[in-house]
């Protein structure tokens, strides 16, 4: 039976690429893309529907299009700029997921649900084990921000899986995604002209290449393996090591000042340092990917190091520094003239 796939958050970079990938797959009959914003790039054979998943209209889409596979991608950290605030991001993440799951629960045709979650559910603290397996939980519960959203979303997804045992629910806890095209809080951080680090701490980073995330989502949508899986490249990079590989200058600041630095950089008009990153940049996180390999049957093409190298090539050593400097100067001179 050929599948009808609904992809939420299709206007994002990963969303649009995944939708096109699925649309070109012979096992898929039709791909319906849903987002609140129109897609920025050509979606090809994907039929786009401008709908808000916070709205019950999503139930009509699922029922009307005979969707049997739902790929939920729109659990995201707040997108930079565009007036996206924490409140609206939270509403979109949590309320949107609740609406979507409610719609899925009603739709008898839904057989698979793939949720793109994040390793942020594990939090970051000094009491963390070196590697998190899927059945561990955060040692220090995230109390705010994206990590808390993800935690709540996963709670609702578990509830859905309980109420609809016939649906194969795949939750993918992706490590931080890097790559030449993707833009996440972490890639924004590495693109800062001078990279602030937590004084006296060095985080362990585990990264996932954007192409591996796409491949994993693709495979999960078509295979329908039930369960929760960590998704990450092999190996670990220390934060200091990563910055050295990029050839960036660092400025160590006390741990508690990291988020304050984020506010300053945001106001200075440079790229922003997400305040939520500060815990992660202090203690880091490691993911055990055994289940990803054995149960999900997915092997990422990139290791952490090679994914970061690919990202670093796109950023280029120091190039971005001069560019953002110029931009800052342009903004400030513009402000003077205006």
């Amino acid at each position, binding site marked *: 039976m050929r599948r009808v796939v609904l992809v939420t958050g299709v206007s994002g970079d990963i969303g649009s690429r995944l939708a096109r990938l699925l649309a070109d797959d012979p096992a898929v009959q039709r791909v319906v893309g849903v987002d609140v914003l129109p897609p920025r790039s050509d979606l090809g054979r994907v039929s786009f529907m401008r709908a808000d998943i916070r709205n019950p209209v999503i139930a009509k889409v699922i029922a009307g299009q005979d969707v049997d596979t739902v790929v939920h991608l729109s659990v995201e950290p707040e997108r930079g700029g565009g007036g996206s605030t924490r409140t609206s991001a939270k509403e979109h993440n949590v309320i949107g997921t609740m609406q979507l799951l409610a719609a899925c629960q009603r739709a008898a045709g839904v057989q698979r649900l793939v949720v793109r979650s994040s390793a942020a559910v594990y939090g970051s603290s000094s009491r963390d084990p*070196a*590697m998190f397996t899927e059945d561990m939980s955060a040692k220090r519960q995230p109390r705010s921000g994206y990590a808390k959203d993800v935690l709540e979303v996963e709670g609702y997804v578990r509830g859905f899986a309980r109420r609809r045992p016939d649906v194969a629910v795949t939750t993918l806890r992706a490590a931080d995604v890097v790559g030449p095209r993707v833009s996440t809080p972490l890639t924004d951080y590495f693109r800062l002209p001078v990279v602030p680090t*937590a004084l*006296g701490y*060095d985080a362990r980073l585990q990264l996932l290449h954007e192409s591996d995330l796409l491949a994993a989502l693709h495979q999960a949508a078509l295979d329908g393996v039930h369960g929760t899986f960590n998704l990450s490249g092999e190996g670990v990079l220390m934060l200091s*090591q990563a910055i*050295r590989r990029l050839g960036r200058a660092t400025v160590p600041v006390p741990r508690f000042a990291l988020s304050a630095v984020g506010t300053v950089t945001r106001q200075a008009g440079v790229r922003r340092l997400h305040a939520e990153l500060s815990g992660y940049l202090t203690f880091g996180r*490691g993911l055990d990917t055994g289940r990803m390999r054995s149960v999900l049957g997915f092997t990422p093409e990139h290791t952490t190091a090679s994914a970061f190298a690919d990202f670093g090539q796109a950023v280029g050593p120091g190039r971005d520094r001069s560019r953002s400097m110029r931009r800052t100067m342009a903004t400030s001179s513009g402000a003077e003239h205006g």
Partner: protein
Amino acid sequence: MADAEVIPLGTRGKPGRGSGSKRPSAAARTLAGRGPRSVPGARRDPVEQRDGRPDGDSAPGTAPRRKRRAATRTPEEPVAGTDGAPNLEREPRPGSQAGPGPDAGPDAGPGAGPDAGGAPDPEPELGPTAERIREGDPEGGIPVGDWVSALTSAAREVFGERWEPRVAELLALARRRVTGDYHVDEFGFDVELTERFLLAAVRPLADKWFRVEVRGADNIPADGGALVVSNHSGTVPMDGLMTMVSVKDTTGRNLRPLGADLVFRMPFLGELARKGGVTLACNEDAERMLSGGELVGVWPEGYKGIGKPYSQRYKLQRFGRGGFVSAALRTGVPIIPCSVVGAEEIYPLVGNIPALARLVGLPYLPITPFFPLLGPLGLVPLPSKWLIEFGEPIRTDTFAEGAADDPMLVFNVTDQVRETVQQTLYSLLMQRRSVFY
């Protein structure tokens, strides 16, 4: 007077070239030929001047430094000698590495004086080498040949005859560190940093200060997972460091300690600990390391052991909850009891300020006879004589499946390990002649 007794550093009193080659190099011949014609230029560009100073190593300009490094690699570079470039009217500057001695100083000034304020460089095509040779103001004296010779002979002094590959290897190490081109395992263990820097820094302390004597090192398996269980003492976890060095030096394996979460909460210490191979003392990490075939070290007494008063020295405290035994049982690795004698005396803990400790979030705040009385001086550990004995491995793979979930068995094995360590401590104490030797 100045020329007579010049013996360049590193030539071991042999007159002539430090490099030992008979024939002057091409560069030296150029210098010798050009020498008389060269006009001492008093005004040079600042980079050149800075580079010519004896402390030129700190000169920020990168281009001249690159030149010098390139010159260092050339094996037949001229080496400063008394007769190396006879036509050059130059005096080595006092205090430089190639400098001959205190008597060179007075001559340099007058010789350079009259020429000061001379014409600008007439022949720029001479290249930087020849330019630097030119005599001039007292600022610019040392020719590049002297630098090369000084560096070469210094390298030979430090690294021995096979200095070139060793210097190259060191440079490669520095490059790897700066560019981040090294491997870190999933626990954050940085092998290179640990072996080349951390252990190397601690080793003199173990060898010279505490004179650590290791016994029973052959009880540590050469490969595969094993759990070293040791007593804990000394106010500061120095015994962990010393055990790491001892294990490394006797077996070549890296001991991977399990540390309390306090270690990882503290800045700098936590970072260093992760890179040194420490991971959090929890069952998940311990089992992951043991099943990965690592040699894991655990100090089950924890703070109770390390922060106990001096009056209770060498009395083992409670061995935790036996978590280390269940980790060993689950992974089937042997337990190696380890007894450390000497660590109790490095900082005799005679008092504690619990209220202040609670305030700063530490398990105890030590008072020793010298700390905080003598201030920073009180931080110097007493040079006690250390004995580290590794006992016979206790096998855990003979127990039935699910033994780790049998609390009584776990308690029994825990007691067995504890008794072994305690008995070994007593016998080592009997053998010890004195605390300090």
